[in-house]
């Protein structure tokens, strides 16, 4: 299986999952990494069985490039909050771009940056998504092994809450702190709650979750629902659009 690992606007954190599983990759006769700029100097940009794409689309050049990658790949997997939702950089989508720009740069040297940072699914069709900021390497393994077996990968669709209960972690909402667990896809293993902080949603929203009810609860408790989502790395996720952001 020919794998390509690609990077768009991102922190490189998700690609690192491939370094985590490098020992297994080295030992597997089925996997061939044919394009992975961060790992190798020998890259063949040709056709791919699977393209793992990290990063959001935030320039016109990236729009072109993701389309080209789609054309060359049988399967496209979006990995990480950047690729799936637009990432933390999509926080700018909710503000004034010129202003945000000017907070970072004095000069105006470039014209090519899009005001909005968007998920790759806004531009091309995506076969599978692996959520998280960063992704969990185990889910990458599940994707690869499933594709090798020609079966559907098992990707979590249950909320963080289920993992909290499995681990006997007391519910933070009940104990009085804000937590996005009920509307956030598990995959981290209830990491933040296990470390005594509310989930900030880095794995992103569950499709069809009851956002309204949680919003009401936040309001009742005096927590700021919208703000927590906006700093949660998945604010621009398609599931939020049209529901939370009307």
């Amino acid at each position, binding site marked *: 299986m020919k794998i390509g690992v690609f990077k768009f606007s991102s922190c490189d954190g998700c690609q690192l999952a491939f370094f985590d*599983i490098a020992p*297994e*990759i080295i*030992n*597997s*006769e*089925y*996997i061939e990494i044919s394009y992975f700029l961060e790992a190798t100097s020998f890259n063949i940009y040709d056709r791919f069985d699977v393209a793992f794409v990290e990063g959001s689309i935030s320039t016109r050049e990236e729009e072109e490039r993701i389309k080209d990658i789609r054309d060359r790949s049988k399967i496209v997997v979006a990995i990480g909050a950047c690729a799936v939702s637009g990432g933390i950089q999509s926080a700018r989508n909710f503000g004034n771009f010129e202003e945000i720009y000017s907070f970072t740069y004095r000069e105006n040297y470039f014209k090519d940056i899009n005001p909005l940072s968007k998920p790759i699914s806004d531009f091309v069709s995506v076969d599978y998504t692996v959520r998280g900021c960063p992704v969990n390497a*185990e889910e990458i*393994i*599940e994707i*690869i*092994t*499933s594709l*090798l*077996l020609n079966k559907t990968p*098992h990707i979590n*669709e*249950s*909320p963080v*809450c*289920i993992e*909290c*209960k*499995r*681990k*006997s*972690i*007391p*519910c933070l*909402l*009940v*104990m009085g702190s804000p937590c996005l*667990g*009920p*509307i956030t896809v598990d995959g981290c293993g209830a990491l933040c709650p296990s470390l*005594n902080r509310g989930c900030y949603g880095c794995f992103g929203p*569950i*499709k*069809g*979750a*009851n956002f*309204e*009810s*949680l919003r*009401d*609860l936040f309001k009742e408790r005096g927590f700021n629902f919208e703000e927590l989502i906006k700093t949660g790395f998945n604010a621009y996720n398609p599931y939020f659009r049209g529901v939370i952001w009307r």
Partner: protein
Amino acid sequence: MERYILTIDQLEELYSIIKDEYKLISPTLKDGVIQYSQNIDFKDLPFGYTQMESAGFYTVKTTDDCYFSYIRPYNSLKQFLRPPKVNFMTVRRIDNNLTFEYHLKYEKYAFFDVRRCDLKALYILDKVFIENKYPDIQYKTVRENMFIVGVNCLKASDVCFCESMDINFEEGYGADIFITEIDKNFLVEVLTEKGKNFLNKIKLKKQQSMNLNKKEEVIEKFKTTIKKKLNTENLKDILYSKIDSPYWEELGKRCLSCTSCTQVCPTCFCFDIREENSLDMKVSERYFVWDSCFNQTFATVHKFNLREKISHRYRQWLMHKMAYWQDQFGTFGCIGCGRCITWCPVKIDIQIETQKLRDL
């Protein structure tokens, strides 16, 4: 039945003898909640603490009127009898031949301080996993090798409604010994041979005639603290007739489908089977993982979820606990422990909702 009166020091001795022989699980205060945990020292039992619980609310405070001042812990025994994730089988592939290795990993557990609701929950789980044409060996093995110290509750919380759910305060529900705290001493009733053997190890004086009435008093006094009541008369048929009620939609609007209620419930048993494969395609590990009827993938047929709406899923949960279960196993699936009420972030209260549905 043998009865003894123990002082707190003797209780501690009993505790340590059990601990020597078994993997001991007992309640303790951890992460701000009282929960069952392994390897707890006697001094770390939550004596003198009590919970304040109500729908979507939990806090712990101190009180000093007795030792067993708290109520049942946050988690339940299913955490140990059928843990959240169990690797039950390893499949290896060599060329195209498969070999199977079945795992039976179990501990010799003792549970110190199990309340009657949780004991009854085990009775209910037994019906699922043991009284089955194909008994679950994992569960059965743990169950047959465990030792249970039951404790009578002294006070109910605002979410407890065990009395409504057919609990029998006379019954030992399979505990090996049962403890009732009476005026800071402990009446120990020995219910099984196993229990007898243990108590023979500490030198104790047999209890004479006195405390039996006292025990009744304690239980009667406890019962007066149960505020929550559910009318269960003819409940199954009434609920069956409400299956089309528009009220389910109302509940669907509030419920987060977060699965919490099912996971904290001591009798909810649903699980999923998952495969985890190695990248070299040679090994596939198979797991039991706790599942929940609130999960969107729970009832999919051909990738289409039969319980598409949250209201469908909430109905499944409540109907199962309060009605279906009776057809399936001859009991309610709910023992009235109130955990699902406390731990529902949006304060959905199964007792209130069931009552509402029946009154509708």
